[in-house]
């Protein structure tokens, strides 16, 4: 290809991004991949090629179990965030008419994110605990007479926290796509006799797919890479891949962590690769 001034400008403008990505994305990944074939003692890494980490990883039933759990969390969180995120985005996009109001409500939703994740997670505990507000309220209402144990330190609380943390990542892209739907299409559907629900199913949802895809990508990757929410909210009783890695890291088992990381990375990339087939992110934004 001919190198024009335009390409050179393009390269120059893309250079900072490229440098950052090369230095802090590509290089670390390469390092991880290399290290995943090394071995470690208690305290240091031995640069010697070995498949031991992978052999162990694929040989251990825990790996499969943990990956299954990771997918389970990812899927359930995805389903919940999608349901909630879609509804909220739909409300903001189609029921709030003034743009100022839309922005104001949207900002309202972002404010909690200014408080540290960890603090927000910790604060669920007094709410959901055995003697927490939720249980006490339910008991005082007479809905239950025994505290619900599964409110905290369970899959329920893990997913609750995930949904809490990540729904906004679903709302934003869906809202963005919805705002780009021509309002005339909605009227056309009504004109053609579609009920509100039919309009939703036959027009809005198909046209919102790109936004849903992008939101899905966000949520899936965030959940699959998480290691702290699962620990906090399950009371360390459950594990996902992230925790496996972070445990290894904590114990300085970097090669083993790296091997797990490589497998996780491949999984995530495959999932995202599949999703990207259905949506052209650049065009749909």
């Amino acid at each position: 290809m001919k190198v024009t001034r335009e390409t050179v400008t393009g390269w120059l403008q893309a250079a900072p991004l490229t440098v950052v990505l090369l230095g802090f994305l590509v290089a670390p990944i390469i390092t991880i991949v290399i290290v995943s074939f090394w071995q470690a003692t208690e305290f240091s890494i031995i640069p010697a090629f070995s498949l031991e980490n992978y052999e162990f990883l694929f040989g251990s039933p825990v790996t499969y179990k943990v990956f299954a759990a990771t997918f389970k969390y990812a899927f359930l969180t995805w389903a919940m965030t999608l349901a909630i995120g879609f509804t909220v985005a739909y409300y903001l996009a189609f029921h709030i008419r003034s743009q100022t109001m839309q922005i104001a409500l949207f900002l309202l939703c972002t404010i909690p994110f200014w408080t540290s994740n960890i603090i927000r997670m910790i604060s669920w505990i007094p709410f959901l605990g055995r003697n927490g507000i939720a249980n006490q309220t339910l008991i005082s209402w007479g809905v239950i007479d025994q505290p619900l144990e599964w409110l905290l330190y369970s899959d329920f609380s893990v997913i609750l926290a995930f949904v809490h943390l990540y729904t906004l990542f679903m709302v934003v892209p869906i809202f963005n796509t919805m705002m780009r739907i021509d309002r005339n299409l909605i009227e056309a559907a009504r004109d053609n006799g579609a009920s509100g629900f039919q309009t939703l199913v036959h027009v809005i949802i198909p046209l919102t797919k790109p936004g849903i895809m992008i939101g899905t990508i966000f949520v899936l990757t965030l959940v699959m890479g998480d290691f702290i929410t699962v620990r906090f909210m399950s009371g360390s009783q459950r594990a996902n891949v992230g925790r496996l890695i972070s445990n290894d890291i904590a114990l300085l088992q970097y090669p083993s962590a790296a091997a797990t990381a490589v497998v996780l990375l491949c999984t995530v990339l495959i999932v995202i690769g599949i999703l990207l087939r259905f949506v052209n992110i650049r065009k749909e934004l």
Partner: protein
Amino acid sequence: MEKRPRSFYVLTVIFALFVLFLYGPTITIGILSFQGPEGGLTFPMRGVSLNWFHELFQQQAVGDIWGAFRRSFMLGLLVMVTTVVVSVMAGLAFRKKFPGSGILFYLTIASLVIPSILISLGVGLIFNQLGLKVHWATSGFGSQLTWTLPFGLLIMFAVFNRFDKSFEEAARDQGASAWQTIRFVVLPIIAPSLIGVALFGFTLSYDEFARTLLTAGSYNTLPLEIFGMTTNVTTPVVYALGTLTTAFSLLIIGAFLIAAWIMARRRARLGSDAGKGV
């Protein structure tokens, strides 16, 4: 006012519940931050006081909240500015067809989807292997950028997809150099979105835990500090901090909205013939 369909009210309730859900912890934190001096992190309240807000400005038994806050704030600003600058540049670059743009785009997406802990691990390993010193302002900063830049770039895509190229052509036509075009036309027009990118960059950085975990070096950023504090007796001071942060951001956003409103008012006073056939 138009009559609203029933679904509007149903959805309003759902939305309100969603906001309540989002704010649940924030509210819990808000209430608990007014614990009496005897109180702990959990209900019941043991008296009501401003004790923990007072404590927040005293030295803690362990750690250095304000130091960490300062660092996080600095880092947030640093990341914010870099994110804005780099994503605008990259956004501009991606509008042209340049060789390698495809690869760079997929790298950016990869950067977005790669689990944070891997970046943390990888960067830590590299610095370790190269014998470099990890520091929040170097390795920590870089690691956070791998998270904020993709977001920034995606927003820039959204912005430039809606950006009318003829503005730039008009500027070139008017004798503006490439740089002047960006400086005097493109940047002012996209400025409101840049505020969005900046806010995003700052928030993501300010709250980032996983990517900073192994890359922050000697000094903790705020999330790490808070996590570190949980190794000792944690007091409602963290809640007081959360409450202050929330109040502070509400204030900023409120000020922002009011400013926007005033600007709109001032402009409206000049009148408008838009839409009129004159």
